[in-house]
């Protein structure tokens, strides 16, 4: 850890805010991507199944 002197709180605060926001955005994007991918897969399977039943 570098010696940040009297600005320790300022510098660490800036990095903490930025890294937390980046982490939240990344995790939210990944979770949403996984959820939508799963839902699409389920919807396509359901349609295939329904199509076969009709056929």
């Amino acid at each position, binding site marked *: 850890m570098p010696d940040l002197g009297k600005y320790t709180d300022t*510098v660490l605060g*800036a*990095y903490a805010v930025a890294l937390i926001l980046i982490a939240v955005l990344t995790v939210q*994007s990944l979770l949403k991507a996984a959820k*939508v991918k799963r839902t*699409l897969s389920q919807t396509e399977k359901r349609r295939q199944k*329904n199509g076969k039943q009709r056929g």
Partner: protein
Amino acid sequence: MSLWEYANPRRFMRLTDVVLPWSAAGAALLMAVGLIWGFFFTPDEVQQGSTVKIIFIHVPAAMLAINAWFMMLVTSLVWLVRRHHVSALAAKAAAPVGVTMTLIALFTGAIWGEPMWGTYWAWDPRLTSFMILFVFYLGYIALWAAIEDADTAADLTSILCIVGSVFAFLSRYAVMFWNQGLHQGESLSLDKKQHVADVFSTPLYVSIAGFILFFIALVLLRTRTEIRARRISALIARERQEAA
């Protein structure tokens, strides 16, 4: 092969299957190197002391905040002129990334401003135009969420994006138009007097490259999600039609 062929969702998904992992890995590597280098291995600056280390997050975030809006402007214009759905969805996907970058730039700028200027906030031309850009981002996201018909939402958000570009442009060039205000000129400039010292600029370039790749990776990921969500809506609509 023409660029327009990637407006085809299937082609876009195939291309991004390859590009996305590389851009994500590059982003993680360059951001880690740039930020660790900047935080741990750069000296204090004579006037700013250790607060100069904030530059490695503040400048890349501010650059992306503005350029994300310009990317949205280009894709919105493509939507309005050529009606390619992927381009409208790419603009929609970029907005949350852009608003996060704007928030980071505003927060880190305020935190940095207090010890340097004696205040967290001033109605300085660049700060004010940045705040207005932030509000435009929120409005853009809210407009997409508020309109049910996707094509109408794409049309209206595209127009909002064109209007908001004035403030994105002002955020970028306000320090050149007006000499009053607290915010200094460009950190990275061809003018040697204005340009930051090499000991800071090299890790800063690495950090900027990392942030750019991070933006690309997230926009690609989110655009893929939007394309899949659009496909789900189409399939459900077809199921309802068939059931009726």
